[in-house]
């Protein structure tokens, strides 16, 4: 672009760089500070951003090993972080797989089949999803207590119940997959049907293999969405060994038992992989953002 540049241009560029770096410093400060704190000895130490003395005690505790202090006192890990991480991954993986399979079939129905009230159903699903789940927590709690009376492994305090509760959040994913299916020409399935395939075979053997990339994307999105979910998990899970990471992490920072250093190590340990997955999936997430989804 041939824009006439004035004399002030150079100064404005310098000012922009300086301003951006100041903002980046403010933005990154909490993230760098938490890494630094995880390496500092003790739970109450303050100090410079680059720790003067590096101690791996918090990391040992976060990874589940006991730590022996200089005075010989053995400190046991305060919380089962790895168990919580495993709970989170287990719940997120199973519910994401279910979400993907449910929303794929529904998306196929919406994209390819003709039936009445199609637009109405699609729109009302999207509207329903706008209601924040945090508002219906009382009802969700009551529902799962009632379910638990009949089917114990789906009640309160079970991972089965939590997984089932997460399945409700499929509307956005149905839209995403439906949009992808609509870019695939119908002729391909029609050819398969001419060759004698049933509708299910056309879906399962022809359309589905072509949609694998979008299914991976939806899986990653659902996975991130469920692994960071806090409100429902905080209502359904209360016992320490059952907690997911999102619910358990807050117990580090109780006024009476303030474990700042231990928290920092646990936060980096569990936050880093999720952040990396998120950054890797950023491209698709960003394209989904403009359609109105806000991350929790």
């Amino acid at each position: 672009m041939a824009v006439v540049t004035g004399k002030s241009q150079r100064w404005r560029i310098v000012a922009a760089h300086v301003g951006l770096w100041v903002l980046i410093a403010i933005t990154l400060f909490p993230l760098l500070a938490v890494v630094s704190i995880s390496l500092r000895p003790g739970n109450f130490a303050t100090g410079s951003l680059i720790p003067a003395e590096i101690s791996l005690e918090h990391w040992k505790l976060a990874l589940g090993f006991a730590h022996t202090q200089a005075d010989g006192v053995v400190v046991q890990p305060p919380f089962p972080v790895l168990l919580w991480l495993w709970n989170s991954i287990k719940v997120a993986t199973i519910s994401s797989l279910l979400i993907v399979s449910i929303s794929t079939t529904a998306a196929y129905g919406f994209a390819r089949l003709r039936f009445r009230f199609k637009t109405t159903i699609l729109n009302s699903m999207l509207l329903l999803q706008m209601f924040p789940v945090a508002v219906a927590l009382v009802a969700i709690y009551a529902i799962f207590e009632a379910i638990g009376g009949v089917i114990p492994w789906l009640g309160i305090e079970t991972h089965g119940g939590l997984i089932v509760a997460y399945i409700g959040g499929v509307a956005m994913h149905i839209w995403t997959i439906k949009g992808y299916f609509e870019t695939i020409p119908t002729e391909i399935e029609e050819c398969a049907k001419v060759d004698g395939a049933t509708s299910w075979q056309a879906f399962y053997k022809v359309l589905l293999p072509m949609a694998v990339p979008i299914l991976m994307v939806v899986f990653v999105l659902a996975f991130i969405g469920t692994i960071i979910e806090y409100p429902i998990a905080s209502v359904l899970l209360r016992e320490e060994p059952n907690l997911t990471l999102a619910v358990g992490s807050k117990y580090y920072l109780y006024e009476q038992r303030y474990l700042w250093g231990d928290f920092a190590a646990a936060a980096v340990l569990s936050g880093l992989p999720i952040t990396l997955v998120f950054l890797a999936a950023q491209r698709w997430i960003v394209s989904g953002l403009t359609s109105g989804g806000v991350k929790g």
Partner: protein
Amino acid sequence: MTAKTTRSSKTQAWRYLFPGVLAMLVFVAFPLVYTVQIGFTNYSASNLLSEERARAYLLDQADVNENRAFGFSVHPDGDAVRVLLTPQGDGASGERYLSPAIALAKAATEPVAMQPVAGNPVLGAAFTLRQTIEQRSALMALRLSLPDHSTLIYAGLHEFAVFEPLWQAQTGGALKRLADGAVYAPNRDTGYFEDAKGERLQPGFKVGVGFANYARLFGDADMRGPFVSIFIWTVVFAGLTVLFSTAIGMTLAVLLNWEALKYRTLYRTLLFLPYAVPGFISILVFKGLFNQNFGEINAILDAVFGVKPAWFADPLLAKTMILIVNTWLGYPYIMVLCTGLIKSIPADLYEASAIAGAKPLTNFWRITAPLIVKPLTPLLISAFAFNFNNFVLISLLTDGRPDYLNTKLPAGTTDILVSYTYRIAFTDAGANFGLAAAISTVIFFLVAILSLVNLKLSQSNDPHKGGH
């Protein structure tokens, strides 16, 4: 297409849609409807059960009469057992009773009729203590009935005792206290069993109370005060969050779209980071950083200015902290949105304005801002609605504290409506689910209005759907 194929394709469609639609109905739509319904009841810790279950609970209450206890021994009889009751105590005399053969493995429902025995009946060897302990849970389920119709239950490893219920069911669902004959009738307006003087029995039961929760919310001065303050703070919080995030996010988007600037991709990635870190972790990190005594932020403020603000104890500072944290969390989202929208502005507009000699600020106010404001508005309303209900932030950062003093129910100065309902329902001992659900219903209506406004706005933006 013939009628037949139409029908089969219709059932086929439902087969594909069913799981997804069902999941939405059960776990999204139903909880919403159910919340509204709970809002019209007195469902709470003291009124948890249905009337039938509350009555059954009371009827199950019984006293064991230790004066009428029998020693017992268990004797095998084939696969089953027979229970022998012997009067207890030194030199005790009186009738002994023997049961017919009972299959202990099966859950006993009816009381077992005991027969008096004379002489010395021939029985198998009595269970040892260890065998008795092994059968303890089966024995505890037993009800033994004497010829005089009194019922005995297991009252320890060595005795069965007469079991005297405290309550007797009356017609019309009332309960009579056997000790003094007082009658408590169910009051289906208050949800309690009450006697003539209105004295209540615990537990109560769940009944519909009409608009009582709403009347309390808007009418009771003790409730209305905190409710109105919390509502105002919720709106201010959501509004200022969107304002600050938009100011920073949009400025960054415009700046990073400036082609004369180097390292733009690097900057964009670094500035996007707050969005990529899981929310529950970054919020807790801030909670630690803002800690009055051990936090890094106060360490810096203390070193530079010599002050240590009480971020969690002072209401105004707590609110400031929440806005700082939420702006940090929120601006990358707006930045990404604006970047996308700015990219879609035709470049020749800027070329034309450059020819006219326009300054950057003029470009922004005359070209960029007017062109992105329309598609941005529905997204900002969504962001407002999201923050209006940003439960995770408040719950993890301050948990609503510092609290208002002198309120019956816990209410915090930094509570927003959703975190307030959460506290009423799940952290207060009274667990007033009905009241919490009533507040949730109010929130539904507000969200529904926002969503409808949004739908109208985005439809009028979408060229495919017409509008104007």
